[in-house]
Every structure is written in structure tokens, then in C-alpha cells.
């Protein structure tokens, strides 16, 4: 067994390890960063695994940094969701980091070489800070750092497009934070606490509270890129370096969503009225349709995948009315968790595979993938496996998620969500097969650039994990249920 001192240190370590490496990479820039980066990624993975093990075996634990209490202290709470997301972050970061390490250094300019790694580890540390935060203020700090490092990572690719996309992203991120911060200030003025657990005991229905929650929700929806506030996402995720796009789509948009989930279901318990929940669901359905439609028609491969993210975020919001209806909260929660995790794995795999395909054909247009299938079978296979999960075909985490959400919708007689879930899958199939159709087309042009085998392996591992989640979902779901504050949820 772990000693108590080590256990107590685990929670902050999950944040501190990537933070240390961010600083190290900043002060020690190297031409070949592997020697520095690889131990960091490994150590990060080890502490995240240890945290998951600890939460799975002994349950939820709290940590108060430096003895400071809220509101200004840093209180961290490791429940199943936090630990699970931390592990997911470590895994996807390792894959994306590995992809970056295998990229030939001549391929880009010095800005990226200088700034990629510090920002990368900073992004990881701030993600973990968001997962583990137990109060509204720490969430804000985590979210703000996350936004800045994400914007920085978009900008490092250095092209003109990237800079303008990054600026647009920055604007959206700042607006979102501002709205959130205003809401938090209102709540603090009313209740004198920022801890979620404290709020849950105090909140009542009144105008200030409603305005505060509305501001928070709008701010976080903007950051999550919920339709129709998604305009900033496709350019940013479309032009970033492939491993960065993967991180952004897989994890960064989920951070603000998880905050929303915690604030509605652990903080403002009972405040989410059914019409409000339905409205969020309707916006989610709009995202599924709009994102899917755009993905069907966009000529650019990475933009296709980015629009797919807009659509897949829609599913997260469709789960909210199902979760709030209380018909079978356990099923809805499990479905939502699987949607978050399997989309993270599948989408990061899809971005990595797309990046590989783009390098191989030397063009980012879908129609230029003609005949690529003969030369890049592994990258396409990874793309396809990820697509299976996104389409929600069995066996995959995406299917299990869709199945559980379908069951909740059917149990509550909410037929419009049944139609949304099924129709969304068809749209997804449409844009995934667009890529395959192009790749099967005959082509006389057989000039393809060589790409590292390791790229394919990493994408395959991520895509395989999203499939595996569908075959062996019970253990991860058990972990993610630990300490979840959904009424009626059987742990």
C-alpha cells in the first residue's frame, strides 16, 4: 500500500509534474528535446495512474494546498471524474507528445521549436487543475491558464492563418472567462463562498443567482464551442499543428464542459429547470446537425474533423436534459462519461491520422486523398477505427455511449432525443465515408511522401483504445462514477 504522505501528495503532484516540465522546457530549450520530454511524459503518466488507483480503491480524497482555506486557498478534490480525466489527459498528451517528437525537426520554424514544449506541458498542468478544482475560483484560474496556453499552441505553427485563428480564439476565450468571472463574483457576493459543496447547501432561487448561473453557463458554452457559439473552433482546430488540434479537440473543450457539469449538478443543485435543460439539449442537437452538415461539405480534411468536433460536442449537451430529467440518471451519467472519454480518444486519433495523411499527400484537401489507400493503410485504418467510434457503431465507446443515452431517452419517453441520436450517427457516417470514398478512388498519381511509422502506431493506439472502451467499459465507468453527485446514481 502507498504511504499516507505519498497519497496526500498525489493530488498536487498530478498538476505539479507537468508544471515543472513546462518550466524546465522553457529554461532549457533543446534541439532534440526527447531526453527531457520523455521522462516528463512517463512520470506524468505514472502519477496519473497512481491517482486513479488511489481513487478506485479508497474513494474520493481532498487536498488543501498550503493550509489555505477557500475562498483564496487552493482546494483540490479528486473524485472519479477528476482522476479519470487526469489519466485520459496523460494518455492523450503522451500520444500527442510522441507524435510531435517523431516529427522531423526541419519541418517547421524556430518559433514552434522554442515554444511548443513549454506550452504543451502548461496546457497539461492547467487541464489537471480544472479537473481537480473544488471551487469556482480555482476552476477560473485553471481555465484561464488553459485558454492562454491553448491559444499559444495554436499560434506556434506560425502561418498567417494560424495567427488570425489564434487571435479569434483568444477573443472568444477572454469573453468566455469574463462572463464566467462576472457570474462567479455575483455568487460570491450573495453567498460568501465559492466552494461547490458550500454552494450546494446555500443556493436558493432568486434573480441574482439566476443571472449568475446564466452568465457562467454562457461563458462556459462559448469556451466549449456549443452551437451557435462555435465559430472560433473550426479555424483554430483546423490550422493548428496536428498534435495540437488533437489535444484541443479531445481535451480542452471538455474542460469547460466538465466545469459546467460540476457547477450545475454539484454546485447549483436543483437550479437547472427542465426548460433550461431542454434548451441546452436543443442547442446540442443544432450542433450535431450544423457541425455534421459542415463536415459533409468542407473541402479541407482538418476542417472536416474540426467540424466533427462541433457536432460531437452537441452530444454532450443532448445528454444534459436526459441527465436532468432524472428518469434513469445512472444510465445517462454513464453514457455521458463514455461520450466524453471515447470522443477524446477517437478524435485525437482522427486528428493524428489526418495529419499523417496530409503530410503524405502534401495537401490538406479531401479530394487529394485519391488513391492514398494503397500507400497509407495504417493511417486510414486508424482514421476508420476512430470513425467507427464517432459514428457510434459497435463495438466502440461511442456506441456504448449512444446506447446508454438512447436507453435513457426511451425510458423517459423523450422521442426527439432518440431521433437526434440516431440521425446524428447517419450524418457522421456521411462525413467519415467521404474520406474513405476519396481514398478508394483510382489515381494515376502515385507520389506520396514518406511518414514515420510511429505516427501511425500512436494514432492506432488511441483509436484502438476508443474501441476497447466499448468492449470493456465497466471498469472505467465504475471509476468515473466514484463520488459523482448525481441524485439517484448507484455507485
Amino acid at each position, binding site marked *: 500500500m502507498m504511504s499516507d504522505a505519498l497519497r496526500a501528495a498525489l493530488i498536487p503532484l498530478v498538476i505539479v509534474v507537468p508544471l515543472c516540465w513546462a518550466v524546465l522546457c522553457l529554461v532549457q530549450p533543446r534541439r532534440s528535446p526527447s531526453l527531457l520530454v520523455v521522462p516528463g511524459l512517463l512520470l506524468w503518466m505514472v502519477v496519473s495512474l497512481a491517482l486513479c488507483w488511489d481513487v478506485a480503491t479508497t474513494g474520493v480524497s481532498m487536498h488543501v494546498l498550503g493550509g489555505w482555506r477557500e475562498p483564496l486557498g487552493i482546494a483540490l478534490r479528486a473524485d472519479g471524474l477528476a482522476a479519470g480525466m487526469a489519466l485520459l489527459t496523460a494518455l492523450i498528451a503522451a500520444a500527442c507528445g510522441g507524435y510531435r517528437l517523431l516529427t522531423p525537426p526541419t519541418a517547421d520554424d524556430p518559433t514552434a521549436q522554442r515554444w511548443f514544449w513549454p506550452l504543451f506541458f502548461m496546457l497539461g498542468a492547467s487541464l489537471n487543475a480544472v479537473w481537480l478544482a473544488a471551487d469556482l475560483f480555482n476552476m477560473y484560474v485553471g481555465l484561464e491558464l488553459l485558454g492562454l496556453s491553448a491559444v499559444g499552441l495554436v499560434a506556434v505553427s506560425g502561418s498567417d492563418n494560424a495567427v488570425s485563428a489564434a487571435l479569434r480564439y483568444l477573443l472568444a476565450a477572454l469573453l468566455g472567462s469574463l462572463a464566467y468571472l462576472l457570474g462567479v463574483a455575483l455568487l460570491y457576493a450573495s453567498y460568501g463562498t465559492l466552494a461547490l459543496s458550500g454552494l450546494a447547501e446555500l443556493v436558493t432561487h432568486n434573480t441574482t443567482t439566476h443571472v449568475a448561473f446564466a452568465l457562467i453557463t454562457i461563458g462556459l458554452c462559448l469556451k466549449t464551442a456549443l452551437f451557435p457559439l462555435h465559430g472560433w473552433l473550426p479555424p483554430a482546430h483546423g490550422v493548428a499543428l496536428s498534435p495540437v488540434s488533437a489535444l484541443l479537440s479531445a481535451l480542452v473543450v471538455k474542460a469547460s464542459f466538465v466545469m459546467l457539469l460540476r457547477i450545475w449538478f454539484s454546485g447549483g443543485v436543483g437550479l437547472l429547470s427542465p426548460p433550461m435543460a431542454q434548451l441546452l439539449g436543443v442547442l446540442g442537437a443544432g450542433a450535431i446537425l450544423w457541425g455534421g452538415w459542415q463536415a459533409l461539405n468542407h473541402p479541407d480534411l482538418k476542417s472536416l474533423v474540426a467540424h466533427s468536433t462541433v457536432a460531437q460536442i452537441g452530444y454532450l449537451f443532448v445528454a444534459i436534459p436526459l441527465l436532468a430529467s432524472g428518469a434513469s440518471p445512472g444510465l445517462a451519467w*454513464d453514457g455521458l462519461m*463514455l461520450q466524453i472519454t471515447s470522443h477524446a480518444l477517437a478524435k485525437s486519433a482522427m486528428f493524428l491520422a489526418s495529419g499523417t495523411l496530409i503530410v503524405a499527400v502534401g495537401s490538406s484537401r479531401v479530394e487529394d486523398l485519391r*488513391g492514398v*489507400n*494503397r500507400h497509407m*493503410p495504417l493511417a486510414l*485504418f486508424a482514421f*476508420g477505427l476512430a470513425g*467507427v467510434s464517432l459514428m457510434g*457503431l*459497435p*463495438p466502440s465507446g461511442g456506441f*456504448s455511449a449512444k*446506447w*446508454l443515452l*438512447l*436507453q435513457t431517452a*426511451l*425510458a423517459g419517453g423523450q422521442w426527439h432525443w*432518440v431521433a437526434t441520436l*440516431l440521425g446524428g*450517427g*447517419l450524418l457522421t*457516417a456521411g462525413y467519415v*465515408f467521404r474520406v*474513405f*470514398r476519396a481514398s*478508394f*478512388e*483510382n489515381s494515376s498519381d502515385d507520389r506520396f511522401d514518406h511518414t514515420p511509422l510511429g505516427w501511425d502506431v500512436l494514432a492506432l493506439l488511441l483509436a484502438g483504445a476508443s474501441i476497447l472502451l*466499448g*468492449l*470493456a*467499459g*465497466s471498469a472505467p*465507468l465504475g471509476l468515473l462514477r466514484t463520488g459523482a453527485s448525481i441524485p439517484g446514481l448507484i455507485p
Partner: protein
Amino acid sequence: MSGAALPIWVLASSLLPAMIIFLLPEQTRALRTSVNLAAAVLKIVLVALMTWRVAQGQLTEVRFEMFPGVDFVLRADALACLFAGLSALLWFTTTVYAIGYLEGAPNRSRFFGFFSMCVASTMGIALAGNLITFLLFYELLTLSTYPLVVHRGTAKALAAGRVYLTYTIGGGAVLLLGVALLYGVAGDVEFQPNGALGGVSEDAWPLLRIVFGVMIAGLGVKAALIPLHGWLPRAMVAPAPVSALLHAVAVVKAGAFGIVRLVYDVYGVDLARQLSVLLPLTIAASATIVWGSLRALWQDDLKRRLAYSTISQVSYIALGVSLFGPIGTVGALVHLLHQGIMKVTLFYCAGNYAETLGVHKISELDGAGKRMPLTSAAFTIGAFGMIGVPPLAGFVSKWYLGLGALDAELPWVLVVLVISSVLNAAYFLPIIVRLWFVPRSEPWPEEQPLTGRWETSRWLLFPTVATAFFTVAAGVLASFPFSPLQWAILIARREYLP
């Protein structure tokens, strides 16, 4: 290796070869061929072992939890062995055929990889022990056949692939809805003789009727019930071995097999009759039988005529299932096998004519019997089998279907069978007349030079002759143990006499 885990090994014996073949470089022809054939032989052995266990009545099952409340179940029962046996046998012959057919063609690693995955999906469909596992492999089948349909990469193939996907993915979504609805009523539905819905209260009967309709609509796409059959004739652009596989074992049969499972092992014959959902199925199947045959009459393209013939013939299975009663059941199950053997023979022949003589149209077949006597003999046997000439396999099916119709007191179904047989004769006999009795007046469109002592490549000819032989044997030896007929009778006995 414990016997109970056999289903997993049966599945692995085509999934693992698929993975190996994907990774083999294009040039390693000998190695790829060896892996293919070894896996096909191994699978026949494994399925035979499994069938032996099932005949002894031993439980042969693998299960684990996929996510809370939903299990992955592979179970070998008599029905599973029927379909798995057919798939294993025809996979072997079709693999041999495909090796000859694709000699020198590009992208063979991809082709054989997906080919093996396709068979793995079919095995999974056969062995699935509950609806979710069935759905899993049903969708996997869609995904693994798409690359085979568009294999040639031409604009026509890609367009056909698009239609194929639209139909099958849509059908899959409808089926998912049906499965999810049923799960809401009855929980995790495991297949069992006499149905799994016995405990459902009468209040839920209206819902059960709707669910039945939804699931038939979902399965009907692959089974090519009208009006859901549009994809099948278009999918004919695929290479001949793919068409053979699609029509005889994989896609169309998966739909038909799903209907068999749905009626017997989910609803159960008693409940299905009480809900009176079988008569609409009888009508839909009868309409499809007549419509498919009528359309076949007008096709000059040989493969398209065979495709419409498939639409008609596969609905015999749905028809037999919908006739409540053990005799109709025997007819349906035995036809599941017999149609596969006969249709695969006909498609091999069509492929032989196209590859050897460059002939694709029926009007160009004059005198082919003289140039390719063995292929033409095989075609004649297959066609006579389809018409239902005794003592061939098709006669046995039609005999039991007819008796089943009388037993179910639906004499008009007998009329449908007679009309269909007349139409079968009307579209097959002219071909046979051209093959044997019309002399050749002009050279073949694209004749390949004769190289060996046989009329065409041995890889193409031997599978054709073998399946033609099976067509004869299944009819002549129908009363021997382990013949398709006896196995179908065993299943019917287990379904009706628990």
C-alpha cells in the same frame, strides 16, 4: 483449449488472418495465399468440432460484460452451426476462387484482408447469443463489405458503394432503434428456443408489434425485401467473388438469418403468432419473390439477372419463417443453406464466363457449353436447382416450403411458389438453351488463350465444380445424418418441442 471457448476460436480464425494479411506487402503472393487457405481449412475443422459438440448437446458459450447491463455473448446452438457451417464451407471455395480471379490485380492485400473480416463478421452474426452482439457483427459486416464493393475504385463502383452504404447504414440505425426499444421492454434479450419474450405482459403487446415491424425493416435492407432491395443490383459492380459471397453467405443471408433469429429465438413462434405479425411478413416475402423473379426476366446482364434472382430466392427463407409450423421452418432453414450453395455456383460461373471469354451479357452466351463444358454443366445444375428440379437441393427446399404452406392453411402461398418456379424456369431455361443448343456464330468478345488442360484456370474451375457437386449431394443425400435437411429438422424439433 476448452471446448466451450470454440466460438472465440472460430471468430479468431478469420480475424487474425485478416490482420496478418493487411500487414503483408503486396508482392508476397505465396505467403498470403498460404495464410488464406490455411485459415479457411482451420475454420472448417473448428466449425465441424463445434457442430459435433452442439449435436451432443454440450453448452458452447463465451460471455463477458461490455458495459453495465450489456453482455457480449457468443453461443453455438444448432442454428448458429447451420449458418457457420455454410459460411465456413463457402469461404473456403470462394477464397480459392478469389485467388484465381484476382491473379495479377492490384490491391490484393487489402482485398483479402477485408474479405477475411467480412467472413469474421458473418461468423459473429451466426454465433451471436444476444441482440446486441448480433447488432455488433451486423454493423461490422457493413463496414467490411464496403471496401470490397468499391474495390475497383471506378466512378461506377464508388457510386454503387455510396448507395450500398446509404441503405445499410440506414438499415443499421433502424435496427438499433428496434433493439434499443426491445431492451427497454425486456432487458438484455438473449436468443433462446421458443423466444425470450415469454415473460412480457400483455400490456406491452402493441409496442412489441411496432418493434417487430421496426426490426424487420432494419433487417429487410440486407435481406433485400422489397422495397428495400435497391442496393443489391447496383452492388453487382463488385468483383465476382465478392458478389458470390454477398449473395450466398454474407450480406443478404445476414439479413435473412436475422429474421430467422428474430422470429424463432427472440419472439418465439407462439408469441409471434399471437401478435399476428407473421402474416404481413408472409405477404412481403411473397411479393418480393414474385417481383424479383419478374425483374430478373428483363435483365440481359448475367450478373444482374442473378442479382434479381437472389432477391427472389432469399425471400423464400423469410417466407418459410413466416409460415407458422415445423414444416415451414424446415423449408426456411434448409433453403438458407441450399440457396447459398446454388447461388454461389451460379456466380462462379458468371465470373468464369467473364474472365475466360469476356462475356457479361446473356445474349453473348451462345454456344458457351462447347467451349466451357464443365462451367456450363455447373451452371445448368445450379439453375435447375433454383427452378426446383428433383433431386437437386432446391427441390428439397421447395417441397418443404410447399408442405409448410398447406400445413399453415395458406394455399395461396403454394400458388406463389408455383408462379415463382415458372418464372425461375422462364429466366434460367433460355440461358441453358443458349449455352448448349445455340451454335456460336462469332468470336468471343475477349477470349483468354487456353494454357492448361482445363477450360479455364484451375483456381476458378475447381470451386465451381465443387459447389455444383454440393448442390447435387445436398439433394440426393438429404436423408443422411448431418445433411442440411437433417440438421434443419433437428433445429425445428428443438424450436417446437422444448
